[in-house]
């Protein structure tokens, strides 16, 4: 098999490529240049877009003895991931750019180009497993629950999965690092990347302020009483507790949380923790890793990359997926993906359009 290995310069993608080489495949390494103005060196443990990272990727490819190229995807990344990220926040939603990158860049732009160039598959260092099931390839959680990345791959369709390889899904992270050491890969002890790769300093609110400008508004409680001011609704995420900058405590002395973000009237609503509870989400734009689901499905639903999956009932009606949780959930925000699992297996995903209790979660706005 001719395999294109996406190599970020980190330990995971290097070991993934090494395993494909060892399995006898004809492997070519590619580093994706996603930033049009890359930094020379990484600051802290963030990102994968520095020149140092591309050199690390090249060095790993040299050690493996495989060809290596750099593909410039900065324009596509800017349009499909960064601009989308900014637009989603501007609309009061909470996007996941890693998921968007897998959907639009790694397993779309890169995969399409790879297939056209004669490759059979794209291999990445994601922690997830591809299992051959009765109905074709299935996407499963990785064996290392700490590292499992099936959530950010939950957007992949059957066609994308058919040409994906995740060689690390059966290994714990520590084993991958040891293997890198054994293979003489210098990135063996390189820190993991965290957070959002295109926000090098980790200051998401500052990045959004730079992109969207200041848009001051009010912070109110559920009764509409004004409690404070803010510079822009995009600095807030549903469920957020810190950084609200409210002058006075709640009457009951308990912490307050962001309950609702309304960019149109620039209003951020805060309230008690119990008001965060959500019974139901309505998802749109579903993506199916196999056959599309229909009707009522018992499953577990996860709405954060590092969250637990909660027992739920999904009701699929065409392009609308209504998910009812068995127990109320906190920190659910429109814009997040809800990924549905059957045990360890991903059975579908959708983008959360709205949340609520069954009583008032109406059909999604057209």
């Amino acid at each position, binding site marked *: 098999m001719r395999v294109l290995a996406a190599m970020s310069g980190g330990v995971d993608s290097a070991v993934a490529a090494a395993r494909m080489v060892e399995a006898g495949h*004809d492997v*070519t390494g590619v*580093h994706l*240049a996603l930033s049009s*103005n*890359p930094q020379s060196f990484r600051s802290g443990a963030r990102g994968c877009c520095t*020149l140092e990272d*591309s*050199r690390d990727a090249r060095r790993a490819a040299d050690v493996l003895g495989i*060809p290596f*190229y*750099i*593909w*410039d995807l*900065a*324009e*596509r990344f800017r349009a499909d991931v960064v601009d989308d990220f900014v637009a989603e926040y501007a609309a009061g939603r909470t996007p996941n750019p890693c998921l968007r990158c897998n959907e639009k860049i790694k397993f779309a*732009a*890169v995969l*399409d*180009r790879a*297939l*056209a*160039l*004669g490759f059979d598959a794209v291999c990445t260092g994601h922690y997830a497993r591809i299992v051959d099931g009765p109905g074709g390839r299935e996407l499963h959680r990785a064996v290392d629950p700490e590292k499992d990345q099936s959530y950010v791959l939950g957007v992949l369709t059957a066609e994308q999965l058919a040409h994906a390889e995740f060689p690390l899904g059966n290994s714990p992270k520590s084993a991958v690092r040891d293997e890198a050491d054994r293979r003489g890969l210098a990135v063996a002890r390189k820190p993991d990347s965290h957070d959002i790769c295109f926000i090098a300093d980790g200051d998401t609110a500052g990045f959004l302020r730079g992109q969207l400008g200041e848009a001051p508004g009010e912070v109110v409680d559920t009764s509409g009483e004004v409690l404070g001011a803010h510079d822009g609704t995009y600095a807030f995420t549903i469920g957020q507790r810190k950084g609200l900058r409210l002058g006075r405590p709640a009457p009951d002395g308990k912490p307050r949380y962001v309950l609702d973000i309304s960019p149109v009237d620039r209003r951020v609503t805060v309230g008690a923790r119990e008001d965060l509870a959500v019974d139901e989400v309505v998802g749109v734009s579903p993506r199916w890793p196999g056959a599309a689901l229909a009707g009522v499905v018992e499953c577990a639903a996860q709405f954060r990359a590092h969250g637990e999956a909660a027992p739920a009932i999904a009701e699929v009606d065409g392009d609308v997926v209504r998910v009812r949780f068995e127990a109320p959930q906190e920190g659910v925000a429109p814009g997040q993906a809800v990924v549905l699992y059957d045990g360890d297996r991903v059975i579908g995903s959708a983008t959360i359009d709205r949340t609520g209790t069954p009583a008032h979660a109406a059909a999604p706005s057209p």
Partner: protein
Amino acid sequence: MSERSVYLDHAATSPILPEVIEVVTATMTTLGNPSSLHAAGRQARKLVEESRESVAAALGARPGEVVFTSGGTEADNLAVKGLYWARRAADPRRVRVLASAIEHHAVLDAVQWLGQSQGAEIEWLPVDAHGRLDVDAASAAVRRDPASVALITVMWANNEVGTVQPVRDVVALAAEYGIPVHSDAVQAVGQVPVDFAASGLDTMTISGHKVGGPIGVGALLVRREAELTPVQHGGGQERDVRSGTLDTPSFAGLATAVSTVVNRLDEHAGHLRQLRNALADGVHRAVPDAVRNGHPELSLPSLAHFSFPGCEGDSLLLLLDAAGIHCSTGSACSAGVAQPSHVLLAMGVSPAVARGSLRFSLGRTSTPADVDALLDTIGPAVERARTAGLASGGEPGTRYRE
């Protein structure tokens, strides 16, 4: 992956000549710092001076005009910065640097740096669609205010598209006002006649590894009257403009390579031209809409540069590499990412077409079989790269229609 290796990237670096290996190896065992006064030093010094005389003789220079450097980049930096500083020190009005828009990065970036941090005013001299300097524009730029020009720099032949530049015209123009001219002749030596004294240049760069010599050695030919402020300070070697312990084996290797290729120039250029023409004709047959870049006649015999509309150059490179064919997009990488070539952009090529360009460069060891291997591969590779361009979002196709 292919086991075959077809090397069509001689402009990047060319195979070392057997006689160079011999002389470098023999010289490496010679103990002695050429600057030492004792017998061992004198022995080394003798080898250095013989090398200097040999380079000078091959290129129409006087031995004292040869300043050995670590390569073309260092020589270009010394020329551009050294001339600028010396000329401005003599007359503070001289702040203008006129440079062709298609210079190699070793000149381009040095010139830009002078503009950014040394108070120089940079004027980029335009080229025509063949990549040849517009002498009228150069003339107008000089005559606007000759007293303010510190130097002019125009390469002898372009490294991407191969167009030979009107260096003689530029020198004649500059001579009217006593303005020094630098030329990077790295690609020209061994392919077209290069005579330093006859050229009238003040400084000229040559490099070892482009002519079968070692990597890491080159020279700046500096006219005896030319004033250069040193870039690198130290022991005062090389006329006090290029300090550093003299690298006897490398200089000997450079001298052997330069004299060998210059002696064989006619035979070598004929061989290259024949192969290059076969290559260019064959590429046109295989890919009828490929666009050949460069001058139809005034061109290096070794180079054929093409734009393949609708392709990404790096897709083509990958496909050819996988087939064992080594060539280049011809342009430098910026931040690890191939940028549209400044040379092609200066020639008026659109950025999209510029990105889909490849340089094939032949050399002494090239054979008709190398050309045939490329011609067997290029058609299907271009077709596939076009599909890939469309697959990855249709951008190249979109650009093609621009």
